[in-house]
Structures are given as C-alpha cells and as structure tokens.
C-alpha cells in the first residue's frame, strides 16, 4: 500500500483551449441552463433536507435536555455516562459517526436505511452539543434565583419550571439557534451514504449533466437561502418569546 497516496486528478473539459487561465475561464461556458430540467429534484431535495433537519432538531433537543439533566444529576453513573457521551461525540467527526451507524451497526445486527442512519447519527451528534449548551444555560441562572424560589417554599421541580426554565432558555437560545443552523448545513454530509437530501440530489444531477461546478454552485446557494430563512425565523421567535414583545401585562 503506497503511503501518502494522493489522488491527483486532472479534470479536463471537452471544450478546453490551451490559452491560459483567463482564456480557459472565458472558454468554459457556464451552462446553468442544463440544470433546468432538474429543478424539481433540487426543490424536492431542499424539502427533504428541511424535514431531516426538523426531525433531528426535535430529537437532538430532547436528547440534549436529558443529557443536561444527567450531567447535573446527583447519580454518579448518570453524570459519568453523559460526560462520556458528550466527550466521545464532540471529539469525533460527524462523517465517521455516520459511517459507524450505517456501515458498522449491521455487523451487530442493526441494519438501518440511509435515511434512518442519517437521522440517528445526526440526532446523536446534535444531542451532545445540545447537552453542553443547555447545561451551561441552566448553570448560568444565578444561584440566588434558585434560593429565592426555594425560600418561598417551592419544590426543586417547581423552582425549575417557574423560575429557571425561562431564564435558562433565554440564555441558551442564541447558541442553540446557531447549532441548529450548523446542523441543517451538516445534513449535507448524509449525502455520503446516499441519504435523500439536497446535496445528494446535487450529486445525482451532476451525474446526469456533468456540469459539476454549476450544480454545486446552485446547491450551495440553496443552502445559503435555507440558512438565511432559518436565521430570520429564529430571530422572529426570539423576539416573540424573549424580546420586548414577550412582556405580557395581565
């Protein structure tokens, strides 16, 4: 096995003249039009990405909440397990986790389809980050707030529900929103196991049109639009839940 195997690829185009860099760019006609017949596929891919993202966010958030509670639990085993989970997931790449789930689990008897594997790997991945974010948010609520609540005769659960939850949510919101957007972009990695989503749709169109640059330029642009939409939505939600609009005076 040759060490340091670098795959040197020369991608030559059928209409390339040898007239220097500028000439080559000019000679290469960007044929975005060739992608038109596949517009539907791309749009469908975008919706698949959105669906995958939405489900992953919900599951990942749930895992994160459970993880945060485990991390701050009095039960040593729960603390240890949650810490191990976070440290393992956050220190290994998503792609590797995806491959372990999709290619590795079958040898243990768990056969998942590409979509399911992507969901599992992405949720577990997001869950680890969410755990840390939520835990930091809970810790950020000042001890005096908890003490004031307890001193009024509220139980720990009541203190959490009425006093800590809102303030912790407000504290974690920006970090969590950023993480969700990163997740949406990271769903593109699921293309590597052939899951149905936007990037994979791009690979398909590429295999049909051979206009690789154009295809991926369009795909990337669609991701950008999705990211901007997400950012706007999260911003609006923040204003309603935590901003001046949230002050209800009954």
């Amino acid at each position, binding site marked *: 096995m040759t060490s340091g195997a670098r795959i040197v690829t020369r991608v030559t185009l059928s209409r390339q003249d040898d007239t220097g860099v500028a000439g080559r760019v000019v000679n290469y006609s960007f044929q975005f039009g060739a992608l038109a017949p596949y517009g539907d596929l791309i749009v469908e891919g975008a919706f698949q990405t959105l669906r995958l993202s939405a489900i992953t966010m919900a599951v990942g958030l749930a895992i994160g909440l459970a993880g945060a509670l485990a991390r701050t639990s009095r039960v040593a085993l729960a603390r240890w397990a949650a810490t191990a989970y976070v440290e393992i997931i956050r220190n290994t790449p998503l792609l590797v986790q995806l491959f372990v789930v999709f290619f590795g689990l079958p040898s243990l008897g768990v056969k998942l389809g590409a979509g399911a594997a992507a969901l599992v790997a992405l949720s577990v991945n997001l869950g680890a980050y969410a755990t840390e974010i939520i835990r930091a948010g809970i810790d950020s609520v*000042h001890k*005096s*707030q908890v*003490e*004031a*609540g*307890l*001193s*009024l*005769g*509220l*139980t720990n659960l*009541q203190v959490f529900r*009425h*006093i800590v939850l*809102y*303030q912790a949510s*407000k504290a974690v919101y920006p970090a969590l929103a950023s993480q969700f957007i990163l997740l949406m972009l990271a769903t593109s990695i699921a293309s590597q196991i052939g899951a149905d989503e936007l990037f994979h749709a791009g690979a398909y169109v590429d295999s049909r049109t051979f206009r690789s640059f154009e295809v991926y330029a369009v795909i990337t642009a669609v991701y950008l639009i999705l990211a901007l939409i997400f950012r706007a939505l999260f911003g609006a939600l923040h204003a309603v839940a935590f901003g001046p609009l949230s*002050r209800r*005076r*009954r």
Partner: protein
Amino acid sequence: MSLIELHDVRKNFGPLEVLRGVSLCIHEGEIVAVIGPSGSGKSTMLRCLNGLEKIQGGRIVVDGTVVSAPGADLIGLRQRVGIVFQSLNLFPHLTVERNVTLALTVAKKMHAAAAGEIAREVLGRVGLGDKLLAYPDELSGGQQQRVAIARSLAMRPKVMLLDEITSALDPELVGEVLRVLEQLASDGMTMLLVTHEIGFARNVANRIVFMHEGRLWEEGPARDTLTAPRTRELQSFLSAVLH
C-alpha cells in the same frame, strides 16, 4: 415563647470553620439585629435557619421544626419563614404581581383571584400598590427590595429573616426600605436582621447580637450594647463603622 433556637451550631465550608458553636434564642415579637465584620458568619447563620445551608454540629429549631433533622419538612417551614437577600431577589421574567403571587399559587395552591388580593394588599403595605404590572428591571433598587419584602409577607410568615437587604443599594434608596421595616416592626413582626445600619439597629431593634469569627461575641439590649460595648472587638468594630 421562642420562635428560633440555635444550640451550639457548627458549620464549615470544607476546611473553613464559619460557625463555631453559636447559641441564640429569638422570641416572638422580638427584633434582633446581627452585626459584625465580614466573614464573621452572620449571613451563613441566617441561611442555616431555613435550611439553605446544612450544619455539621448542634441543633436548630424554628417554629417547632427541627431544621437540622434529616427528614425535616423544609418546604413547609419555608412557607412560614420569610427571607430577603441582599440582591437578585426578584424573578426578572415575571411582573411584580406575579413575583408575589407565584408562591401563593404554586406552593400554597391558592386560586389566582385570592392570591391577587393578597398581592395587592402587601404591595400596598410597602407603598408599591401602583407597580403591579411593572417588571423588576423597571424598578429602582429600593423598590425591588420592597417588592421582595412584600413577596415574603404575602406568605404570612411567623418570622422575617433579612440578610443585609440595604447593603447593595444606593444611599438615597436605603431610607424607603428602612421605613418599611420600621412599619413591620411596629406591626409586631418577629425579625432577625443582618445589617450594617447601626442607627437603624439602635432605634428599631430590641436586641443586638455582635458576631466575631464565627461566634456570638456580645449580646444585649440594643441601645445599651451599642452605646457601651463591653468587649474590645465590638468597640473597635463600632469605631470602624461609625467613622
């Protein structure tokens, strides 16, 4: 009838001994001011009374409940003991009214209407009847502390514990809070206050307790003890504070 009893209470934070055998009795209707230098254990002692801090030695009995016992009903106790801290008392995401009614509805399971009535009454007593729908960050420090007092009063406590509640306030806001305390005192509320306001202690408190290095160093009637301190430590403390 003693409402609060401390018997040889010991408490450490790790290797640091904060309370080294404190014994004290507070009777119903008494107003006791606790003074002393930082680190003498005053706040810690207060926080042990409603179970926020656990003690390592001795016994604490408050309103018949043995606080230091393992299975003590702290939740029930805390509904009968009001405590106000130096700062960050109020819940910033709730209106003033909701701050006051929260414990009434959630812990005491009252109906919203009844709780609202009580809130209006106690907020009126502290002079903030018009601020029901305000949020804490819209109030001054003095107003916030008064709301905190009202919130504790709403629970109809047997005794009020006040931990340096004016220490974090701008000087011009201290007066309004002290006036509320004076009113409470004349209404007959039992109060244990940790304070630096020596003047207030002399005029309003029945008894002064001077703490030094985790122990009760000197104790006696308010006026006499302050004008004629017996121990050297209290003398130097007073001369440092009353410069």
